């Protein structure tokens, strides 16, 4: 077997120029996949972290009822003893903090014109401790210790629609937990631009105590848990789940991936594009390699005839060709992985920026992640591709008529 492998290895380098061209082609395919895949991975990572840090958090805790039925009254599926739950969760390892939230909606008015809002009530200190900060276009964030009027952040669409600016006032109306209509006056301290028009047209944020006063309830909709690292999400979720079982209300936790619908859609779309690219590379390598390997087979016709004349089983000839192609694939993969990583590292320090993605104004840095699973996957792809490319030449070689092969010029 060792000699057979040696023969295959030496045959690979018999025509150096052709081998180098093949290695460049195979390596280029692998490097291309690594660069594109690495860029996508970096993009996924960036989107994941921004999704989490924009307020989604790593884990969110709800009551089980929140998902089982529609609310009959405001917050009737909310968490009652949320302070106790938050304290319990905060004691766990890897937890940076817990932020309570109320999601509610209602109407707002500037005295002349009315509109609807989708509001969230937050504890600004807890939010800040988790690194969640609204994307302010003007003004400032909410202040918990404000002694004056109730502060509010509104979206740019709301501000435009209501013709208000920072420092102006609005009245917001909502249905209380008892079903009554309640209203409070708020002062606009900041205007937020999330980058999504649908959100900015209805965005309202006030402090948690103000919302509880408006809604006449001490409950919260959910608790947002921030962790030290996203990679710890599964572990912490597994640790928290049994602890939540001991609470008075039946609580459930949702990991960020369960709630990040947009992230999942983007990932799915780009993953499909990547698979498509992988298929293209696979067939590119396959088709060009078939041609190269067929040429190799024709050039070695007399040698194959000699080997067959000496009693070499035809299956050995087939195996030899497949082995040579596989070796070529392995070497091409090594060239591609090394080249792709070097090129990726070069791009990472080059400072190249791409135009801002849709909905954003900041140019995106062209960064490439070095993903081991991608390296393994791309390598396997080209190795399999080359091994498959060898099948036709291998079959033809193994079926040569010996006398004709020996007479081949």
């Amino acid at each position, binding site marked *: 077997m060792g*000699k*057979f492998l*040696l*023969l295959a290895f*030496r*045959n690979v380098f*018999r025509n150096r120029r052709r081998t180098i061209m093949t290695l460049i082609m195979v390596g280029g395919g692998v490097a291309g996949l690594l660069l594109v895949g690495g860029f996508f991975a970096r993009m996924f990572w960036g989107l994941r972290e921004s999704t989490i840090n924009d307020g989604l958090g790593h884990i969110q805790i709800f009551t089980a009822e929140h998902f089982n039925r529609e609310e009959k009254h405001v917050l009737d599926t909310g968490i009652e003893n949320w302070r106790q739950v938050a304290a319990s969760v905060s004691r766990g390892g890897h937890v940076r903090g817990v932020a309570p939230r109320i999601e509610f909606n209602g109407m707002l008015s500037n005295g002349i014109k009315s509109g609807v809002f989708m509001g969230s009530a937050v504890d600004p200190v807890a939010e800040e401790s988790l690194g969640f900060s609204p994307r302010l276009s003007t003004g400032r964030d909410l202040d918990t210790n404000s002694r004056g009027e109730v502060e509010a952040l509104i979206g740019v669409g709301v501000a435009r629609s209501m013709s208000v600016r920072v420092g102006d006032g609005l009245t917001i109306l909502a249905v209380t937990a008892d079903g009554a209509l309640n209203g409070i006056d708020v002062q606009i301290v900041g205007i937020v631009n999330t980058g999504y028009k649908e959100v900015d047209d209805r965005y309202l944020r006030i402090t948690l105590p103000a919302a509880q006063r408006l809604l006449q309830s001490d409950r919260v909709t959910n608790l947002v848990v921030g962790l030290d690292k996203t990679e710890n999400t599964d572990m912490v979720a597994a640790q928290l789940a049994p602890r939540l079982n001991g609470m008075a209300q039946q609580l459930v936790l949702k990991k960020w991936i369960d709630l990040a619908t947009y992230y999942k859609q983007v990932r799915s779309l780009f993953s499909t594009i990547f698979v498509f690219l992988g298929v293209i590379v696979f067939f590119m390598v396959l088709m060009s390699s078939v041609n190269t390997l067929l040429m190799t087979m024709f050039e070695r016709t*007399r*040698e194959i*005839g*000699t*080997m*067959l*004349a*000496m*009693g*070499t*089983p*035809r299956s*050995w000839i087939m195996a030899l060709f497949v082995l040579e192609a596989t070796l070529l694939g392995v070497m091409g993969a090594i060239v591609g992985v090394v080249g792709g990583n070097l090129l990726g590292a070069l791009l990472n320090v080059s400072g190249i920026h791409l135009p801002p993605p849709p909905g954003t104004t900041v140019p995106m840095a062209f960064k490439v992640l070095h993903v081991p699973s991608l390296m393994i996957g791309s390598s396997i792809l080209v190795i399999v591709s080359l091994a498959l490319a060898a099948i036709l030449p291998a079959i033809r070689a193994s079926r040569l*008529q*010996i*006398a004709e092969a*020996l*007479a081949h010029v």
Partner: protein
Amino acid sequence: MNDLAEMDRIPQLVCVDAVTRRFPLDHSFVSALDNVTMCVEPGEFLAIAGPSGSGKSTLLNLIGCIDKPTSGRIVIEGVDTSTLNATRMTALRREKIGFVFQTFNLIPVFTAAENVEFPLLVQGLSSGERRERVAAALESVGLSTRANHRPDLLSGGERQRVAVARAIVHRPALVLADEPTANLDTRNATQLIDLMHDLNRRIGLTFIFSTHDQRLLEHTDRIVRLTDGQIVSDTLTAESANEGASHGQVLASRV
């Protein structure tokens, strides 16, 4: 068939029995061999001579089991090769036959020793046994010192001696050589002829070769002459007579 029956009394290594080989050409057939019958005893040093296109290589290919006759049969050591399937035919070639080609046909990426080792590798011998046999084979062709050279670093004569070593290393019953001296200069051709003759005399190895080379024909025991696919003469030579006609039977001219 009477000739064959007569020869059956002697243990034969190869018997070619009324063999015809036709090849398709356009919409007809061309006969490369036409009803050829001959036998070869163990230990013979036999030349198949004849002009180009007379069927020499075709006959060697058929005896070497790398081609099949259109009709007739080839018997090697009592085994009718027409009854063998492809696998057994391959095994027969692997174990019983050694080949020497006009263009050497060495594997260019292997060293001389590795080329000689190849038939043993195919036979599945252990590495220790392979090493011993390769060393002995290279020794017998006088190339021990060139064992680690690749074919492109060897002269034509050396390459052909490596090919001979490769043909004998697995101890075959028969070595077939197709125009073995055609690509060699006089000095190398003479050395090769001496080498094959020596192997024939020393270890009784049977050689059948096709050749035009008069130098080679002068050393043979027996010459079978072909013309247009038919045997026109089958004679024992003076060389054979001088050495006492080891076959024990005089094969007179058949035509």
